[in-house]
């Protein structure tokens, strides 16, 4: 049972390490999806939001990161 919990935890860790970072990425995808569904010609806007949203999410996260000791 312990090995199962360890494996599941490790699998989740493949995708989520910084919770806020992962949630922001999912929010960007959700906004892009809403654009496609709600706006006429929303697919183009959706692509733009995806690209820009991911770039901004990455940049803001790394710029705000604090040094960790080694």
């Amino acid at each position, binding site marked *: 049972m312990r*090995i199962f919990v*360890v*494996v599941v935890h*490790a*699998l989740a860790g*493949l*995708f*989520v*390490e*910084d919770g806020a*970072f*992962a949630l922001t*990425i*999912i929010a960007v*995808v959700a906004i*892009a*999806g809403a654009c*496609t569904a709600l706006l006429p010609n929303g*697919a*183009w806007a*959706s*692509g733009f939001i*995806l*690209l820009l949203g*991911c*770039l901004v*999410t*990455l*940049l803001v*996260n*790394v*710029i705000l*990161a*604090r*040094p*960790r*000791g*080694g």
Partner: protein
Amino acid sequence: MIYNLHFASAVTAAFLASLVEAVEALTIVLAVAVVRGWRPAGFGALAGLVLLAIIVVALGPLLDRIPLNALQLAIGVLLLLFGMRWLRKAILRAAGIIPLHDEAAAFASETAGLREEERRHEPHVDWFAGLASFKAVLLEGLEVVFIVIAVSAGRNVLIPVSVAALTACLLIATIGLLIHRPLARVPENVLKFAVGVMLTAFGLFWTGEGLGVPWPGSDLSILAFIAVFLMTGLGAVAVLKSRGKVISP
């Protein structure tokens, strides 16, 4: 030409990512072999490979039953989470915000942990050692399987991508068996940076495809995304370095 570019980028991403995963698995298997011998290390690794094969054979055919758009969206989002996590970490490591991953240190830590287990659980120590080897091969193997499926989703490149991943794993296993040391000289952060960029680009592409985005140039846009994320990543490293936010020694 577009097929060739997609083929080349998918095969390269799978090969480089598999190199990194195989190096990480090898470090733990070697640590087990050094502390308890090749028997538990080999059995653990073999059991991990067998379970991995069972998972692939059991779940592989189910992928064909999922509608292509839903599959692309699900894989795209997972790939974005996975790739951007690697890229973020590689940027922070390259800028000196967090320490570089050190295979020699990981090997020493795993060895010390196993010796401690040896001291505390003498009768079951081979079982614990085998389990460590099993877990390493299973988890790193699952990452390889995920990357292979993700970069070949919806395109007819699954076999060459699988061969590239398998070649990388066999290459690392062979080198590890020959030199019996963790591969500390592999430029792991450079590889993770490159793979993070490529997986993020694939993730963005598949997520958009799943949402119905008509990417300009179709598959060619993956190359544009690779260039954009590479420049952004390198730019972020330069900015962070210039601000002098580095770890204290």
